[in-house]
């Protein structure tokens, strides 16, 4: 019995290297990040060195070692969004939240991320707050959307 509450996740996947990414997805989903301690357990389950797990976890942007904020604001930087001014939304978001892309506010409430196209190009530019998509977005709407407005 592991100490980190991932036994059920591990039990769902065969103990092979090929399960690695799926296991990490499940852990990321549960904890909103990959707790450092869980990785050794994953390595043991899959029968690979810890360094291999670490290599995979740092290669894919889906995984992060720092906990994501309660509200995750993702700004699509796909080409369609870019030509329609996504950069301005990004700058506005960085200003409103006071953090750079890829960071989480110190109170742990917001995370700001940029993503490379969510396939909602016909409504560009797009902002996604948690699971909700917001299309044809204007930078001025951001304050209200994030509840940081006056």
């Amino acid at each position: 019995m592991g100490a980190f509450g991932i036994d059920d996740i591990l039990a769902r996947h065969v103990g092979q290297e090929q399960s690695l990414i799926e296991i990490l997805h499940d852990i990321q989903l549960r904890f909103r990040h990959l707790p450092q301690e869980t990785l050794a357990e994953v390595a043991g389950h899959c029968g690979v060195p810890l360094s291999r797990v670490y290599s995979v976890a740092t290669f894919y942007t889906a995984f992060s070692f720092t906990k994501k904020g309660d509200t995750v604001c993702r700004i699509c930087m796909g080409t369609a969004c870019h030509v329609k001014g996504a950069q301005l939304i990004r700058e506005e978001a960085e200003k409103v939240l006071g953090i750079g892309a890829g960071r989480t506010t110190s109170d742990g409430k917001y995370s700001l991320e940029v993503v490379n196209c969510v396939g909602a190009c016909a409504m560009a530019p797009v902002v996604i707050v948690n699971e909700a998509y917001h299309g044809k977005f204007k930078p001025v709407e951001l304050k209200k959307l994030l509840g940081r407005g006056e």
Partner: protein
Amino acid sequence: MIRLTIDGRRVESRNGEYLLTLARRAGIEIPTLCHHEAVEPAGACRLCMVEITRPQWNGWSKLVTACLYPAEEGLIVKTSTERVLRTRREVLELLLARSPRAEAVRRLAAQYGILEPKYAVDQEGDNCILCDICTRVCATHVTGAISRVNRGVAKKVATPFDEASDVCVGCMACARSCPTDAIAFSQDGATRAIWGKTFEVVPCTVCGAPTVTREQARWMAQRKGVAEEDFYVCDVCKVAKTGLSCRKVMW
């Protein structure tokens, strides 16, 4: 038997070896930085590019890495066409801008007439050219203590979380296999430090000279089912011991 030509020379291969192996066997020099016979080829440094063609390609040709391209019947390989040399020079330009202090890179670049990099030099750039020899060596032959982490420009070689690794045995294979001496370590008699971990180099039980790290001895003992203590005698003392036992037998 597969027959092909490299730079006009007829070359034969029994089992589809890589072009680099064949060329070197024929005495044709192809530069490499990421090639190491102890591990599978990676094709990372792009210096061993050669141009290949076939008569039926009607003059069309392509560049491939010699370290990864298997011998094929009737292939015509050229190792120093203008296209090959320009690619190699441009790759060296990039390497020199990345690691301007790396001796192996500078030497090779100079061979190709590059003394000063034309691209912006990475002032904080270290000697690591991400050839991947160290991590391949460690993962294939030792304990897999290090790996390549992150991706793209942020890629680097590291232990998990940049912390001292539980499994590193301090054998130094990574540092000694590195073509650009990019892996930092320190050694003074009884201790050795590498990848943020300090090892005791166990003194020879006879004379006290340094032998191997305790971790390496344990790892070897475990792999081969022998006693760890057997490794704690230095080669000089072992020779003396051998001599002694010889004497006992002889006289």
